[in-house]
């Protein structure tokens, strides 16, 4: 073992006591930083994946959209469905209506779907909380759970739907009466924005409400497993002519995905400051050690050590702290995440927050996803920061003249 490594180890872990106070505190500081950082990242990854999955469930892989109503869509649907990478195709029509129950008006968006096809495409049944999809006919609707609660609707409640078509007719001095429909079921996707303002109807009902005859607004596609989203979208787009176009679920929810990514980046930057602060205290402690050991360093150089190696012994201390802090931090974080649900529930019980928690987060498990690239980034950055923390004191030793060092009081 080169002597500078030996000295670095001995300064951190002296022969007699085993651990120096400095080593314990610095390694603890770094590992806490790493643990928090990786913990938060893993949980955010978990949430992110959960949300992506739910987005995918709601949207399907690809949509074919247009500015106008698409008539004669069966040909388009057949054409797309014949592609090797497309598994299923389902037409939809969407828009906004006014929904009224008693004198309480709401303006939900409406999704008109082809039930038989849609059921194959997306796990719609999974979302149903009350009633059944089978009861959905051309005179009934499915309500989002939040919206249903707001207007006090349950299965069998009847509501009135007003559509833009009515205004259109009014201009021609015709009066179209609101459509009375019953609630066939209540669904819950887990996404508040969807559950508070979405109405699902049959495609036929939506076509009636909007006076679209046989037209649709678009096609939802599911790809074969393993097919490339990007390639499929590109190929379909090439085959389509304007105003028809294919967009991926990622594009449809671009803001959402962006916000998720942005939040994670911000979180990472903020939490890196913990490690940075820990590294500052490492630097100052090492600097103090250099000053305290000035004469020892002078003697070591006199005894034949190269000043470069003296400097190395301080860099190595930073490195050792960085590496062990990272390893311990990751281990600590793995332990915490393993017991995360117990920890959170204990905390919730202590603060009587269990009900609130259940209300805001519709899951019992905190999702976690370990991303290798996060680990590599955090470990790499931490070790580099700690190494840099050792470099400043090391530079200080390089500036020392051994003769002055030996002379210093």
């Amino acid at each position: 073992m080169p002597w500078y490594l030996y000295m670095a180890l001995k300064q951190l872990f002296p022969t007699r006591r085993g651990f120096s106070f400095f080593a314990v505190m610095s390694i603890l500081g770094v590992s806490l930083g790493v643990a928090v950082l990786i913990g938060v990242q893993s949980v955010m990854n978990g949430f992110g994946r959960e949300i992506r999955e739910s987005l995918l469930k709601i949207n399907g892989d690809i949509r074919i959209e247009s500015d106008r109503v698409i008539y004669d869509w069966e040909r388009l649907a057949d054409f797309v469905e014949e592609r090797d990478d497309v598994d299923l195709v389902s037409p939809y029509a969407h828009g906004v209506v006014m929904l009224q129950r008693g004198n309480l008006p709401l303006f939900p968006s409406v999704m008109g779907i082809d039930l038989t096809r849609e059921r194959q495409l997306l796990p719609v049944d999974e979302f149903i909380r009350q009633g059944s999809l089978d009861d959905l006919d051309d005179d009934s609707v499915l309500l989002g759970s939040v919206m249903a609660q707001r207007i006090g609707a349950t299965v069998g409640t009847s509501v009135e739907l007003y559509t833009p078509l009515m205004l259109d007719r009014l201009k021609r001095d015709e009066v179209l009466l609101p459509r009375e429909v019953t609630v066939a079921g209540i669904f819950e996707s887990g996404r508040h924005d969807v559950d508070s303002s979405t109405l699902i109807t049959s495609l036929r009902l939506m076509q009636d409400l909007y006076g679209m005859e046989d037209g649709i607004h678009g096609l939802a596609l599911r790809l074969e497993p393993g097919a490339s989203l990007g390639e499929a979208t590109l190929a379909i787009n090439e085959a389509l002519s304007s105003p028809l176009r294919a967009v991926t679920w990622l594009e449809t929810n671009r803001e959402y995905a962006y916000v998720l990514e942005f939040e994670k980046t911000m979180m990472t930057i903020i939490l890196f400051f913990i490690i940075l602060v820990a590294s500052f205290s490492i630097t100052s402690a090492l600097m103090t050690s250099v000053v305290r050991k000035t004469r020892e360093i002078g003697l070591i150089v006199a005894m034949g050590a190269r000043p470069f190696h003296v400097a190395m012994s301080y860099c190595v201390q930073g490195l050792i702290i960085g590496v062990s802090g990272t390893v311990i931090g990751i281990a600590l974080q793995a332990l915490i995440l393993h017991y995360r649900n117990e920890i959170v529930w204990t905390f919730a019980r202590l603060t009587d927050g269990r009900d609130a928690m259940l209300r805001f987060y519709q899951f019992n498990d905190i999702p976690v996803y370990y991303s290798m690239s996060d680990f590599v980034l955090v470990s790499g950055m931490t070790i580099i920061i700690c190494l840099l923390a050792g470099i400043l004191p090391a530079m200080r030793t390089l500036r020392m003249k051994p003769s002055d060092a030996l002379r210093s009081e």
Partner: protein
Amino acid sequence: MNTSRTVSAHDLPLLEVADLHKTFHDSGRSIHVLNGVNLSVPDGRNISICGQSGSGKSTFLNLISGLESHEQGSIRWNGLEIMGLNERRLARERGRFFGFIFQAYYLVPEINVVENVLLAARLLGRLRQSSRDRAVALLEQVGLKDRMRYPVQKLSGGERQRVAVARALMNEPKVILADEPTGNLDENTASEVMDLIVGICRKQGSSLILVTHNPLFARMMDQEYLLHEGVLNVVRGGDYDRMIPDEFKPGM
């Protein structure tokens, strides 16, 4: 005694200093510390250097060992001119050629007694299986074998200096540079440690260059020098010794 000195004086000197000059420049002021110092130390001979405080004794030792650079003159270790050696070579040669003992002990507090002694070998990358045996043997010679696993902070000043002596001798140096090695010790401990240093250096075959204020200790050496106004003069021993009758010698 005289005959043996005459014989060894014909050998290649272990350490040779010729016309050494050293000037410090401090905030525009020049301090001429050494003005043409000459010294030749034959193998196995011990010398002492006395001089007033601030006369440049420590500076001279730093120059001899290449820790400080000189602007004029030559320094040879076993015939090797050190002027112009690169940093790496200089460090290696110094580590092999010299052992250091200072007034303060400069033991490393994080490691125990025997590890402090072994550090000298470690620094030169010379740690072998046999090193430990040598370290233990040296500690035995300085009377600390039973405390080799002691933390150094628990030792007294005299004991610490003994450890420092063992450490200085670890790499079998040709020359021990001792700068007031007993300066921090009481009178009794000082002479004990001094006897020990002289005895162990003789046994290990290392020459001793001792800087001291104590005329008793100075007299224990083969030759005595006085550093005065930047020049090193022989006080006792050597050619000077034979030229001048005892009653004219200073300090005697």
